[in-house]
């Protein structure tokens, strides 16, 4: 029996499945937040979600539009100040996984959310680093989720806002007290992981119906594929139902005043 679902749903469900029950997850807004809450509402009821607004162990009923929606605070175990969030909880080593989105990613999983072009006179000015630079280094590991396209998957990012593995893949070598960094990248086409040696991102799993050519087409560098290339398991009915209800609730909520 095959279910109908979109590539975007496939991405979110796959990202959600990456989170294990009991993990402590520092959640970025947007796609990561959608995936993290789907995980919490399905296979990982005890996943602990933390948002940089200071909301600890929050269980929002609808997805927040911003990182500090009232919903997050009302459903949190407690809410701490933003300095405490970054100092005690993130830097203090209490976060097992940071879940990030990005505007641009390169082959060493470095993230750019600063700008396209030159810093002094940018072509496109992006919002900036936010919490990501320290989430990426102080969390135990990092999951990244974003849509796959030539524009977003570039060989070298214009600017390293947030460290993946650096310009040469060695950016974390011999740095004390640093997390493992990006351990998987989940897109609407596939899952990628860093090569254990070179740290270059390698496709390890193709989503159902996606071809190698589609991925090559959507990636600006010569993307490699794992020898043991897997096929990503399809979403199940419950995941799709929970995700769709969550998004419908969210849309209704944010349409109101």
């Amino acid at each position: 029996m095959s279910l109908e679902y979109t590539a975007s749903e496939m991405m979110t469900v796959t990202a959600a499945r990456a989170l294990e029950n009991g993990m402590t997850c520092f959640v970025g807004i947007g796609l990561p937040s959608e995936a993290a809450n789907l995980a919490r509402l399905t296979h990982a009821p005890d996943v602990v979600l933390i948002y940089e607004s200071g909301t600890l162990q929050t269980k929002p009923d609808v997805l927040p539009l911003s990182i500090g929606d009232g919903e997050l605070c009302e459903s949190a175990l407690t809410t701490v100040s933003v300095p405490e969030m970054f100092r005690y909880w993130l830097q203090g080593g209490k976060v097992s996984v940071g879940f990030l989105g990005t505007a641009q990613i390169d082959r060493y999983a470095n993230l750019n959310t600063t700008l396209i072009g030159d810093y002094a006179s940018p072509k496109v000015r992006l919002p900036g680093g936010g919490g990501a630079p320290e989430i990426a280094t102080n969390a135990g590991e990092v999951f990244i989720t974003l849509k796959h396209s030539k524009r977003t998957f570039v060989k070298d990012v214009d600017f390293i806002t947030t460290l993946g593995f650096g310009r040469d893949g060695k950016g974390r070598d011999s740095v004390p007290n640093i997390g493992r960094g990006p351990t998987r990248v989940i897109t609407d086409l596939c899952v990628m992981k860093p090569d254990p040696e070179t740290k270059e991102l390698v496709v390890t799993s193709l989503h159902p119906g996606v071809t190698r050519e589609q991925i090559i087409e959507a990636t600006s560098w010569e993307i490699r594929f794992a020898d043991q290339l897997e096929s990503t398991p399809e979403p199940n009915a419950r995941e799709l139902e929970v995700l769709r209800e969550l998004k419908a609730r969210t849309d209704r909520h944010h349409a109101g005043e």
Partner: protein
Amino acid sequence: MADFLSLHNAVARYVEDGATVAMEGFTHLIPFAAGHEVIRQKKRDLTLIRMTPDLIYDQLIGAGCAKKVIFSWGGNPGVGSLHRLRDAVEKGWPCKIEILEHSHAAMACAFEAGAAGLPLAVLRGYVGSELPNVNNQIKFIDCPFTGERLAAVPSVRPDVSIVHAQRADRQGNVLVEGIVGVQKEAVLAAKHSIVTVEEIVDELNAQPNACVIPGWAISAIAIAEKGALPSYTHGYYDRNNRFYKEWDAIARDREAFSQWLDSNVYNAADNAGEKA
């Protein structure tokens, strides 16, 4: 002891042209009414500090109040860019502005250090990021005990901080509840501070460990009902998410923005926050 002033008088007294101003509120409790008052009083050459510039700084920048912005995430949360910020940075409209860019962790620590009276904040940060290449205020020190290399940034110590809160009592003590962000730090770090509140009450009814800022640590308190709209005040009103989405279209266009500013700020009373 805080003075109880009108918002007009508080801004007129404490926000000078050329000042370094932090208007804080992490998504929650953003002091929009006060920001609009700053625009109405045509303050110029401000250095604006804020972790998440948000719509309030987009409006201040578009209105020509800023010469420099110090920030760590300058977007319309969940929607996209701040088009007025981009227009100023990319095309110099209405004037060229300088930016100084940090990460959230560094700015949060810098506010904390400012409140703590220190000249610097130390954090395990910026590892592998190229932000230190473009921000000469990010330095590194070696821990004298372990030798570990740690980042250092100057503390934030604004001339004036402006925050919004739920309520004050008649002695000027202020309760901040919910997502408290760096509001208390902003007030304590600043030379002067203005706190706008939803209401003034006889009793704060605060819990033993509530986030309460004593009146003697605040310069001025002004009532601004719904002063955080379109952001929200926990326990009073919700975030106007629809307006955040609508802002995208308004801010994309200089003309549309200028018209919005005329109708909603220049030609509005100092409780303009209500209409945003």
